[in-house]
């Protein structure tokens, strides 16, 4: 058990500048992209994303090697005046996951978003690649910043990068979805900002460890925690704030949907977990945490049942995201303060495995759904027949992702849900255990429903387009990672506890 002060960043550690580069280099690439007017756009993006992966892997190796977090004092100004960056085990994990999925999505979108050679800059490529770079930068900021206002800037950057992606296709429906996303997101931002204003007023600092060290359960702090939480829930699309997600995620191009569902909603979730477990750990009253878990349970049930009733494949996959986000909220109730540390560690690992397994599974599934739409020219679930002939690897990717979403062994989804289940039963919270099992059954129903259609004979008169193998392999690769995570031993992962106060 480390004291709370262990969260404080005192000095820059060796390799700490990697944290700055992870945030700033995508911004450098973004400026080049806009300044050069589309010339060499894809080369700039791929270089930036490869560098991003290098940075993430270096950070993870350094954290694992030293068994302690990396830290950076920006500009040499210490809190409370200045801003610090800090990467612990979960930060490093999420940086690697994010970099890998961005690269895969960029590879998938390589052909669709090529700038036409010798012609003037085109609209979709500039918007798509700019947004990808900005999202990559914003996520790294959310994973590493220790300053509440700096994190607000990260949330804003993530939002303003994600919304154009949902509007790329144009047309009234996608614009309406993008506008709805904007309204929910701005509502969330305002609540978050209001909450941190209260915290600054109460504690005179925006530094997470500075607030944690002097935390009092007074009215201002409780109100602030409430505002910040509701604001972040709106961005994470937890039930009942999920209404914006399905049309927005389903309306984006496939590679964009993959990044939005796999990573973007996890940015605000990451911050929420960081706040409740590292900043306000002593405020975690069981009743409030049960409320978060209840919202999660309702998300699992409502999201899965709604997914079952969808006629369009991309909307089904989007509603499945609503459901899968719900599981992650059980950790708030399953890892309470003061109970057996083994249970808490099991729930903690289960929740992060769920975050990562869902990221890979959902990215693979959205890419597979995008390929299905390309082969068939539509994404009506009823008429998916013939897909297994034209794009067998995409169907396999969908199936493997489905395996992890259902939580069948061997898969990362199974490990995650099993560990959450074990923690629920060990803590006597069998209701959440029942929801975890019910959610798996419902996911099985919608995944097998789609797979059966994909395996069916093509409808008479359907014209099927061919799609390349390369992009099918990318989808399959992502799904395979979700499944391979099932080979991990079913026990708490020590890496996830590096640098934590618990």
């Amino acid at each position, binding site marked *: 058990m480390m004291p709370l002060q262990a969260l404080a960043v005192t000095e*820059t550690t060796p390799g700490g*500048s990697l944290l*700055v580069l992870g*945030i*700033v280099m995508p*911004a*450098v690439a*973004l*400026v080049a992209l*806009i*300044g*050069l*007017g589309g010339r060499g756009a894809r080369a700039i993006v791929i270089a930036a994303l490869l560098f991003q992966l290098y940075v993430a892997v270096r950070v993870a190796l350094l954290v694992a090697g030293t068994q302690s977090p990396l830290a*950076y*004092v*920006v*500009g*040499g*100004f210490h809190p*409370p*005046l*200045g*801003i610090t960056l800090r990467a612990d085990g979960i930060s490093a994990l999420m940086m690697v996951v994010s970099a890998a999925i961005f690269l895969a999505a960029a590879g998938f979108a390589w052909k669709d978003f090529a700038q036409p050679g010798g012609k*003037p*800059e*085109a*609209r*979709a490529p*500039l*918007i798509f690649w*700019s*947004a990808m770079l*900005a999202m990559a*930068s914003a996520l790294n*900021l959310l994973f590493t910043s220790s300053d509440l*206002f*700096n994190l607000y*800037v*990260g949330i*804003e*950057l993530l939002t*303003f*990068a994600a*919304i*154009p992606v949902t*509007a*790329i296709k*144009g047309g009234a429906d996608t*614009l309406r979805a993008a506008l709805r996303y904007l309204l929910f997101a701005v509502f969330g931002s305002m609540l978050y900002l*209001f909450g941190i204003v*209260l915290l600054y*007023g*109460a*504690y*005179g*600092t925006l530094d997470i460890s500075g607030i944690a060290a002097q935390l009092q359960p*007074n*009215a*201002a702090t409780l*109100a602030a925690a409430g505002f910040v939480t509701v604001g972040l829930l709106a961005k994470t699309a937890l039930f009942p704030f999920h209404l914006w997600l399905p049309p927005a995620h389903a309306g984006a191009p496939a590679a964009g949907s993959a990044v939005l569902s796999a990573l973007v909603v996890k940015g605000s979730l990451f911050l929420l977990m960081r706040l409740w477990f590292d900043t306000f750990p002593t405020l975690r009253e069981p009743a409030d945490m049960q409320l978060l878990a209840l919202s999660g349970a309702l998300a699992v049930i409502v999201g899965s049942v709604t997914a079952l009733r969808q006629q369009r494949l991309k909307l089904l996959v989007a509603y499945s995201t609503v459901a899968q986000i719900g599981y992650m909220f059980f950790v708030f109730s399953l890892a309470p303060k003061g109970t057996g540390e083994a249970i808490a560690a099991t729930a903690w690992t289960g929740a992060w495995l769920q975050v990562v397994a869902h990221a890979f599974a959902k990215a693979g599934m959205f890419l597979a759904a995008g390929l299905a739409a390309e082969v068939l020219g539509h994404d009506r679930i009823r008429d998916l027949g013939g897909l297994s002939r034209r794009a067998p690897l995409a169907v396999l990717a969908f199936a493997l992702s489905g395996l992890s979403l259902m939580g069948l062994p061997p898969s990362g989804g199974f490990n995650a849900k099993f560990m959450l289940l074990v923690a629920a039963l060990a803590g006597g919270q069998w209701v959440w255990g029942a929801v975890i099992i019910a959610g798996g059954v419902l996911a099985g129903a919608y995944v097998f429903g789609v797979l059966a259609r994909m395996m069916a004979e093509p409808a008479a008169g359907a014209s099927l387009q061919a799609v390349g193998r390369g992009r099918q392999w990318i989808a399959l690769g992502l799904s395979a990672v979700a499944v391979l995570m099932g080979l991990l031993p079913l026990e708490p992962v020590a890496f996830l506890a590096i640098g934590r106060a618990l």
Partner: protein
Amino acid sequence: METGFDIALALLLLCVGGWSVIARNMMTAVIVFIAYGLLLSLAWVRLHAIDVSLTEAAIGSGATGLLMVIAAHKVAGDTKRVVQLSRGFHVLAAVFAALVAVGIAALAFVLPGEPSSLAAPVLERLPDSGLGNPVAGVLFVFRSFDTLLEKVVLLLALIGVWALARDADWGGVPGLRLFRERHSVLTLLARTLPPIGFVFAIYMTWAGADVPGGAFQGGTVLAAMWILVMVAGVRRPPRISSPPLRLAIVAGPVVFLAIGFLGFLAPGAFLAYPEGFAKPLIVAMETALTLSIAVILGLLIAGPPKGEDAP
């Protein structure tokens, strides 16, 4: 005397705010909202937050108001697309807004009596940077990382507005055409005011190091001049693919990033300034930022590129 002024201002704010909510004509509501923003900036002056006041007047009242005027102008007389809200709905909105206000006011009282703030340490360490304005110190010294990333957010906001264009119109001219006919008064203003505004903007940016002002305020004044010229039809907005325009958009972030990386070399941390060079570097940064902010704000208001014949 001062208390009397404050009470009168607060009452006036309430009345004007209420008027904006219950006004039935959209254009009336927008104009009253602009007036409301200007009164609010006065309130900020009374709270000794001059920088906030300038921003409120420029962005909260000016830029937001202009966007609302454009929106109201676009749908004026269009009874099919504009939903007429009932009187009851307006009252409901007013009640909701009042509840939010009461809630916020109540929270002000739950904070500890002695406000905790970093004002003292900021003032104590400000002289090291050579700056005199503590707000500039926070924005460009202690928390310049936030400021840098906010500029990236501004780029993304522009990309978001441009994303609303049709594929075929990409690279073209923004669709801001408020006044199709020549309007003598507006034209006169658009020809005479910009030189004065230009000098004023430069002054605000330059003075921002020591007194309220700075790149954002200066950039906003420049943007206002540019918008006036565009709205009056004296000069058309440039094509969004124009290389000089793109350079102007990224100039601020490029200089900011470059100075940030310079910090790695000396004195050894990102966004740290070499001893004795803080002020000149910050002024260079602010100059480039003024240009970029002016161009981006102007383009945000000018809207997505639009073909000539598009409705």
